[in-house]
């Protein structure tokens, strides 16, 4: 598939307004502003665009749910928090194609009747924020953002809002809380943001890649978009491939492409690094179940990966070769979830800590066989028992690795040591006084 989202990302100066306008930029906005908001929403619905942030919820529907009759202002919040481990696609779009995002924000605002869009960017993306702010100033000066956009009478502002380091801010209601100047902790739903979101106003929260697809749909038509991929999985998709592959990176492909092709094809990640064998793949960011080598010959689509027993999530594909100890990998991830739990719900706050402690014990060689049941019990008590999906996300690496690599856990316990010593690990751990 010819890349569309990332066509010019390697071009020098490809991120600038001049370049964007020269290559046909902001024409979709002009077209959208000549359509009614409902026509825009209908086009997005017809395209079948599904949210690229992780949940895969249909974007057109999300926009339709926004309470347009409300007398209060409406908002678009662009989720640029990109905090899911293994994910780095929105970074590329923002740094190298920022005007596509702005155009998507503006069309979204037109569709839901908003006058302001906030781009919530994670604190660690300082260098990306610099690019966004600079290009935003250019777009404002050229009349693409602000008052009376392109002489059409449409007023819309875009602001960049920088976070300060919190995985949880990627959850839509936690993002709204953070944008309101509070701790990034999720809200009880309902009400959903479409009814009461930012400042209690109707709000649509959309991922960067999702919004970037919108101008393409308006410009080339919903049929073009839908035809790019399998049914209900249309459009171009960015895949982030990291870990033990020859060429890690962000690749754009149709969702017809299989997970196996993404990992092995020379067009993409080019296979496992020299002389090693594939052991497991986490296909959608750290929060989804691990797949085995014989499970990856499936389309890398929302539905294809679901059929294989995992999730496409944020399309962060983490590849692990045979030198990877799966107990260690689970412990590494649970350290993350324990650290990042916002602390609001007990099952996640306490459960994450417990899981990390038990995994640490097994990894060090101090585990007992009954600890495996304890792991499953604690993880099982987190699933579905928290306000947001974080609880499930934290429990998944444990449930999935114990199920798939139980023998490895048992070997750790039996032999009282890590049985898969990787050369790339440190000789001594736990240096930190956390």
């Amino acid at each position, binding site marked *: 598939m010819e890349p569309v989202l990332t066509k010019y990302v*390697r071009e020098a100066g490809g991120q600038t307004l001049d370049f964007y306008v020269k290559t046909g930029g902001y024409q979709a906005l002009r077209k959208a502003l000549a359509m009614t908001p409902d026509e825009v929403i209908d086009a997005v619905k017809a395209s079948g665009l599904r949210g690229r942030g992780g949940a895969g919820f249909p974007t057109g529907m999300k926009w339709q749910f926004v309470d347009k009759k409300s007398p209060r202002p409406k908002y678009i919040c662009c989720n640029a928090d990109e905090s899911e*481990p293994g994910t780095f696609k929105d970074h590329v779009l923002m740094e190298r194609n920022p005007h596509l995002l702005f155009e998507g924000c503006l069309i979204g605002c037109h569709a839901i009747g908003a006058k302001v869009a906030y781009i919530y960017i994670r604190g660690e993306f300082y260098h990306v924020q610099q690019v966004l702010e600079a290009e935003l100033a250019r777009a404002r000066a050229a009349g693409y953002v602000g008052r009376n956009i392109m002489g059409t009478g449409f007023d819309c502002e875009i602001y960049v809002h920088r976070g300060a380091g919190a995985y949880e801010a990627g959850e839509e209601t936690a993002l709204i809380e953070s944008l309101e*100047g509070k701790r990034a902790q999720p809200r009880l739903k309902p009400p959903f943001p479409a009814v009461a979101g930012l400042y209690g106003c109707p709000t649509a929260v959309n991922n960067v890649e999702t919004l970037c697809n919108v101008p393409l749909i308006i410009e080339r038509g919903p049929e073009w978009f839908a035809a790019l991929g399998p049914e209900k999985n249309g459009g171009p998709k960015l895949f982030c491939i*990291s870990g033990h592959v020859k060429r890690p*990176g962000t690749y754009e492909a149709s969702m017809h492409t299989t997970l196996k092709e993404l990992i092995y094809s020379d067009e993409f990640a080019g296979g496992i690094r020299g002389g090693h064998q594939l052991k497991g793949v986490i296909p959608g960011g*750290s929060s989804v179940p691990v797949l085995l080598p014989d499970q990856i010959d499936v389309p890398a689509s929302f539905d294809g990966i679901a059929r294989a027993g995992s999730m496409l999530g944020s399309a962060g594909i983490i590849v692990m070769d045979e030198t990877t100890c799966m107990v260690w990998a689970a412990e590494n991830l649970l350290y993350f979830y324990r650290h990042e739990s916002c602390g609001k719900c*007990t099952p996640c706050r306490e459960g994450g800590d417990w899981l990390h402690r038990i995994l640490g014990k097994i990894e060090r060689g101090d585990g007992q066989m009954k600890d495996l049941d304890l792991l499953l*019990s604690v993880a099982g008590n987190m699933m579905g028992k928290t306000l947001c999906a974080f609880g499930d996300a934290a429990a998944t690496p444990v449930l999935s690795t114990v199920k798939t690599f139980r023998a490895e856990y048992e070997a750790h316990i039996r032999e009282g040591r890590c049985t898969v010593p990787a050369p790339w690990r440190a000789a001594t751990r736990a*240096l930190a*006084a956390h």
Partner: protein
Amino acid sequence: MSFHPSMDYGRGHHKSARALPEEGPAFAFTADRRATLEDICSRYPAEQRKSAVIAALYLAQAQQGYITRNAMRHVAEVIRCTPAEVEDVVTFYTMFYTRPVGRHVLQVCRTLSCALMGAERVTEELSKTLGIRPGETDAKGEFTLLEVECLGACDRAPVVGVNDHWHECQAPDAVRALVEGLRANGEAAVTGCHLDVESRTK
């Protein structure tokens, strides 16, 4: 207290402590920073100045290096919220420092993709080279070493955040070069963020 029937609690559980930052010297924003903050506040509805609290804290941190109780009080005054609300934010987000840090804050990403590419060894080597453990600052105040969670540069692993910038593809055996480069040339020694995957991978 939360409870699981077969969990071995051991020691160290449920130690929740409110670690108050130091009082610090008197604090007020410089005129420039105050003006920047007012500009940022204008991006939100007039009654929602609290949305700018994170921006205000970044400015305070830029001015003083870290956040003190006096800085939090001043931010509360300017934002028109309570000092408790500011403390709530400071203590939640990882990018605010409540203790002095070194000129270069080295943040090694320790999450899975970076760990698979040797991040543990990078931390180990940095620790050896600088003579400090993660979480510590050296005696001269040159370097602070931290382990951080996923920075979102997994294809350029292992990544080391250097203050607000990124140093990518950090090999464990090239750690000394980074440290010496920072000493000699400051942030110019950092690779920065670049997306040209082709030229970096064999």
